[in-house]
């Protein structure tokens, strides 16, 4: 049994975010990064499957040198080996480009199960998991709250709007994109951290994966036009005073507007 866990490294939740000079992303200099919180639940789920029986857990991440830190963290928590896809050519990829890279890694690895977070803390697109599954030609489920082995695959409980759950059976190989909170993520043990250095970490380029010229800004169908902080709106009025005064004024305003 082989499990591929896709991790994204995102800005730390406490990092101060400033928009970069081009206005299309944030300034990455000097800020801390961490593993996308949704992906930590996916990693924990993979490690639990490993703990329960025989499984190799392979983690993959795309990005610059800093991404090795996220991969080391995953190795320290118990993953067996890591794949770092590093290539400036991949910069500026849209979600489909990222899905192509991950699907190419999956094609080389032939995992029985791909686990990843439902979305990323920074991009919020939720697009990569279903795209990757389609490119791989395997069944997938998103927003999974619970996955249990069933026959030759997994029975997944998906979270729907309003708290309802949908049960989906996936035959292996398959891709499961987890919702946050489906398990309690472990801390890295001291021995795990010490052992991580000896675990293999391969680096791959777009060319290695046969994707030269296909991914990156050139191959992107969607491009970020700009990012900006919402502009403060006009027209709000704050009524101050004692409770009685505030209520009297508020009722007056509502009547004035003909709403009462």
């Amino acid at each position, binding site marked *: 049994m082989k499990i591929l866990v896709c991790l994204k490294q995102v800005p730390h939740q406490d990092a101060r975010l400033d928009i970069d000079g081009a206005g299309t992303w944030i300034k990455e200099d000097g800020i801390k990064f961490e593993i996308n919180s949704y992906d930590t639940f996916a990693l924990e789920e993979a490690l639990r499957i490993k703990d329960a029986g025989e499984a190799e857990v392979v983690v993959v991440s795309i990005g610059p040198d800093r991404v090795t830190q996220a991969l080391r963290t995953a190795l320290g928590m118990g993953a067996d080996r890591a794949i770092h896809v590093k290539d400036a050519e991949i910069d500026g990829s849209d979600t489909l480009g990222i899905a192509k890279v991950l699907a190419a890694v999956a094609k080389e690895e032939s995992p029985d199960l791909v686990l990843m977070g439902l979305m990323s803390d920074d991009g919020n697109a939720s697009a990569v998991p279903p795209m990757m599954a389609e490119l791989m030609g395997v069944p997938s489920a998103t927003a999974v709250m619970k996955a249990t082995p069933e026959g030759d695959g997994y029975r997944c409980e998906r979270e729907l709007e309003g708290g309802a759950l949908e049960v989906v059976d996936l035959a292996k190989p398959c891709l499961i994109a987890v919702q946050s909170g489906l398990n309690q993520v472990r801390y890295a043990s*001291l021995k795990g951290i010490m052992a991580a250095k000896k675990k293999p970490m391969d680096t791959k380029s777009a060319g290695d994966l046969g994707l030269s010229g296909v991914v990156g800004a050139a191959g992107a169908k969607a491009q970020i036009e700009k990012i900006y902080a919402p502009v403060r709106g006009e027209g709000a009025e704050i009524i101050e005073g004692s409770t009685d005064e505030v209520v009297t004024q508020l009722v007056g305003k509502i009547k004035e507007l003909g709403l009462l």
Partner: protein
Amino acid sequence: MAEPDFYLSEEQRELQRALREFVGKEIAPIAAACDAEERYPLEIFSKLGGLGYLGLRFPEDVGGSGGTCLDYAILCEELAFGSAGIALGIYVHMALACAALEAFGTETMKETWLPPALRGEKIGAWAFAEAGAGSDAGSIATRAVADGDDFVLNGSKLFITNGPIADFLIVVASTEPEQRLKGLSLFLVERDRPGFKVAGSLSKLGVRASEMAELVFEDCRVPRENLIGRENRGFLDSLRTLTLGRIASAAFATGVARAAFEATLDYAGKRKQFGQPIGSFQAVRFGIADMAVQIEASRLLCHRAAIAADQGLPHGREANMAKLFATEACTKIVERALHFHGAAGFMSESPIQRFYRDCKVFELGEGSSELQRDMIAREIGL
């Protein structure tokens, strides 16, 4: 910009990251309550032990995880960042009780006590100080008299951290009173041994999450096998155990100072007076800049001593300097932090007042500042 901790290895950064996560989720949320209730959260022992952190610096054959003194300094700073009191209980257990057993204990003692102690299932204490003996260890009055195959202990110990929660104690007692320092020996005393009792918990100004007690020995009979190391070698053995304590104290002080600094930096950016954040006023800016410098200097002195220890170099002077500088810097930093928080920092619900109460202990314990200065003066040739 280079990372200020560029000299740390990849594993040490990962250790730091993992500990920050653990402290943020497991210790920081309970720190205020444990302080208010003067209660040690025993589950922290088993959680840290289960992850192998209590075994840091201990060999694998006794259940340890290996690791360096620098790793240990990182652990201490991170624990104290979350709670100085919780850090202190862990420190006494690891660096005093377990370290003494590992360094000088018999094989039987190590096999019996160390694996469960390093898993956090058994808790240790270090029974050194007495009403009449602190810095002046030669005045220790607790007596251990040989009687057949046993030693009989009589006396009392004061200000013993972990006293109320300990399963085993390392007791420093006099076997040759006229020899003073050279007549001290170390004994392992189990909690349920007849003649030993915890006389009462002591209430403190700070580090209140750590529990402290007075211990009494009344004709407490321990077998000769419980003698740790050689008879009358206790003081020299204690000294070896205590060197690490200076590095730990410096790291604790750095952790508390960093907690106060981060809170102040955040507050100064948010708190507005006269239409602007107080961090834009020069008096506050300069004060917070000074905090940052003092914290980095504290950490560097501490890590230098730890690296020297790891390389097998003499590091007594380095450890003394780190301890003196970091603990005094911490007290100054926390005082400024409270000042810049104004009334908000003075409120019981503010963590700043807890830091203010916690920091002083580091100038007192593991050798007072005066003792440090005296030793440093000697070490630099006076």
